[in-house]
Every structure is written in C-alpha cells, then in structure tokens.
C-alpha cells in the first residue's frame, strides 16, 4: 500500500516533441497532492475536468546542428524527470542545467508543492487547496487560487490573487528582491504582518493598525529611511482579525488589494 511506484521517466524532448504522461491518484475521491521539484525551469499548473495528473515536459534546448560531429560522444544534457505516485501524492522531480517547461494539469481541488531550485517562472491558475510555492530566481504568479497559500521567491516578484480563503489557516507571501502583490476577498479575516525594508506598503483594505505608516492606494510620497533603522513588523487586522498572514519583502513594495 505504501510502496513507491516509479511510474515513468519523463524525458523532456525538444519543443517540437513534448513528452506527456498521465498519472492517476491512488484514491481519486480524496484531494491529492502534486509535488514538482525542478532544478531549473518554468512550471505551469492549471485545472482540467479529469481526475488524473497530466504532466507535459518540453525542453527549450535547440537541436544541435547536424553539422556538428557528435560521433562517439555521450550526451550529457537533456532533462529527465522521475514521476512517482505514493499514497495520493504525485511527485515530479528532476531537471538539469537546461531550461525546461513543465505543464501540469490537475483536478481543480488539489494540493500543490512547487519548488524551483535555481529559477524559472512558477505559475498556478484556478486551483483550490494547500498551495506551497518556492522559487529562487523568478516570479511566482498564482491567479484565482483558493484555499491557503505559503509562497516565497528570493529574487522575483510574488503576485497572488485569491478567490476564496480557507478560514483559520495562516499564510505567507514573501520575497527578498521583488514586490509582493496579493489580492484577497473583501471579507477575509486575518492578522496582517507587513514588513518591507526598502519599499512602501499600499492597501485598499480597512486595516486596524498599530502604527500609521501604511499609505493608501491614492497617495504617493515615500517615507524617509534612516541609515540604521531596523523596522519592526507593522501589524494590523482586517475584518476583525484571524490567522496570521505574513507579507514580507526587503527590496520591494507590498500591495494588498481587496477583490472587487
């Protein structure tokens, strides 16, 4: 029951010949989890009406010109992915030094754990579940997602729009070099912990705050920054308060928008 089943070795072909594989969840009646761990590459996750996980991989590498003499040489490059399923968790792991594009289609209610070691663009659209996305170099874009989000990009912007928020779940949206821009349903209850070192904070939520340093969307001026100024988290509540939502960046702005 708990055995790891290596379902396939996905090989990323060139962009003219994508490799595709379909993996079922062990128990399709329960929301499953999809983990994608790439060394380098773009990942896009979208929902579809089926109950399985469809993974398509393409490589960006251009074909080696046929005039190059490759006789007797072993090919070292080429993306290979191991795809496994264990206990309702589908794992896609691998990657290489070349950029690959991985497209994943999942049922709309699926938990996600997406990680890129070196970088790339990580995109998720329309999924509902516990969503964890971590990137080193590259943007994280989560559009119209629901459930709970814990996300970080070290060098890249974090852009999230949420349709529904699961109550009582803490969340985090962080970056080091990049803006963090989050849209939440207007009735979201949360304790906001906001912090940026070099940047501003904008919101159109009605935040009950401790220190009045938040600028409204319609105003403009930048605040002063003293040389030795270790700012503290600015905390405030929306809609009476709830679980902690942490928005943090070092070099970038924080924007928290109310969904219309």
């Amino acid at each position: 029951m708990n055995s790891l089943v290596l379902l396939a070795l996905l090989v990323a072909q060139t962009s003219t010949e994508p490799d595709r594989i379909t993996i079922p969840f062990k128990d399709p009646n329960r929301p499953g989890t999809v983990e994608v761990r790439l060394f380098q590459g773009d990942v896009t996750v979208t929902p579809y009406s089926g109950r399985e996980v469809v993974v398509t991989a393409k490589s960006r590498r251009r074909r080696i010109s046929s005039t190059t003499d490759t006789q007797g040489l072993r090919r070292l490059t080429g993306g290979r992915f191991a795809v496994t399923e264990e206990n309702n968790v589908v794992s896609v792991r691998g990657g290489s030094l070349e950029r690959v594009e991985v497209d994943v289609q999942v049922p709309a209610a699926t938990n996600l754990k997406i990680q890129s070691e070196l970088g790339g663009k990580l995109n998720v659209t329309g999924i509902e579940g516990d969503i964890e996305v971590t990137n080193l170099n590259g943007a994280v874009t989560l559009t119209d997602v629901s459930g709970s989000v814990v996300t970080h990009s070290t060098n890249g912007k974090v852009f999230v729009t949420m349709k529904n928020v699961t109550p009582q779940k803490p969340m985090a949206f962080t970056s080091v070099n990049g803006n963090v821009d989050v849209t939440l349903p207007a009735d979201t209850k949360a304790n906001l912990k906001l912090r940026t070192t070099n940047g501003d904070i904008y919101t159109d939520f009605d935040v009950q705050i401790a220190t009045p340093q938040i600028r409204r969307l319609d105003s403009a001026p930048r605040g002063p920054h003293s040389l030795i100024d270790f700012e503290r988290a600015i905390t405030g509540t929306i809609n009476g308060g709830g679980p902690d939502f942490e928005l943090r960046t070092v070099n970038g702005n924080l924007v928290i928008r109310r969904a219309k």
Partner: protein
Amino acid sequence: MHEEDFRNELPDDLRSLWEKLDSIPGETADSAAMKIRFNAMLDAYHETVDRSRRAWWPLRPAVQFVIAVLILAAGVTIGRYFAPSRPQQQSADLIQLRREVGDLREIVALSLMQQQSATDRLRGVSWSNQIDEPDGKVLSALLDTLMHDPNVNVRLASIDALRRFGERQVVRRGALQALTRQQSPLVQIALIDFMVELQEKDCVGTLEKLAQDDHVDETVRKRAALGVQDFQQRQQ
C-alpha cells in the same frame, strides 16, 4: 424503579441478597474538575480535528490518532491527581489541572509542527505562540524548526515566535548558530535583526564575516554591515 422488575424475577433466596446490594453506596464524582477536563478535551478536539473538515487537505489520519492518544494519555495523568479529594485539596487539584490543559496545547503545537503541509506547521508555530510558559520541549521544537524546516516561511515564523524568549540563553545560542548556517536571505536578515534587537554581542564576529562573504546575498551583506555598525555605535 426498574430494579424492582429484576428483584421480582429472582427466587426468594436470592432476593434478600439483591436488596442488600443497596447498601453499597455510589461514589460522587468531582463534577467541577471532571467538567474542566472534559472541556479541555472538547477544545483540543474542536481546534484540530473538527476544523480540518473545512479545509481542503484534512489533517492526516496519523495526526488525529496522535492527538487522540495524547489527549487520553494526558487524561490518565490528570486522573492520577484526583484521588478521593477532601475539600481543602480541591483548589490545588484544579491548579494542577489548568497546568495540564496548558500541556494539551503544547502537545497539539508539537504535533502540528511535524506535519507534512507548511500551513499546518505554520499553525503549530502560532499555537506555540499562545502558550504562556512553554517548557524546554516547545522551545526545542521551535529552534529545530528554525534550523531544519524545509520551508523558508515556516523558519521565518519560528523566529517571530522565539522573539518572546530572547532573554533565554538557549534561544540566543540557537539563533546565533542558525545565523552561521542558514542560507536563505530572508531568514538571515530576520536573524540579524533579532541579534541586534537582543543586543547579543557574541554575534558581531559572525556579522562581520557575513558582511564580507562574497557568496552571501548582497542585501544580507548590507544588513550585516549595518548591524556591525549599530553595535559599534552603541559602544561609543
């Protein structure tokens, strides 16, 4: 009384024995104490198991089982304190029970911090924040989370939770050690700020090294340098 029906069914020779059974008095429960314990169980159950039903990814069955076992195990400990109590002993027993309820919260926090999903571990960290006097176990778990949690945001949250206990030696040591090992810029910056806030002079050497290390993120280096400056300024 229903027991009469039974009595009437018995032959005469057994009937008097049946009647004599009446002489065994019933025991009176310590209702107040039992209610407190019951409520603690209800709270813990409600918090962790019931709420998960609304989430998309329910707490793994293993967690529910662990919590159930721990609640019962804690319950057995609580039970030991309720030997037939005399009135003057009661308040001492209740105080003990309240302490045990705090332990329940701790059990849940520790359990949550071990979960597969980052959201659950974040919850565990914030639960431990609500414990007034966490013991070594909770602080250890937080320090462990700081050093080893695979998710950068969870590590960040643990620093916030540890902030309250900055004056404890074990926390200062742990944070300093983390500073020498952590690689994620966000965590490094938070740790630098923490050290400066604590005025932990032992960290100056580490800060200087960070400021000069080419492999370290530039933002972190700048922050470390500012930190060193801050310490030097305060000494003047």
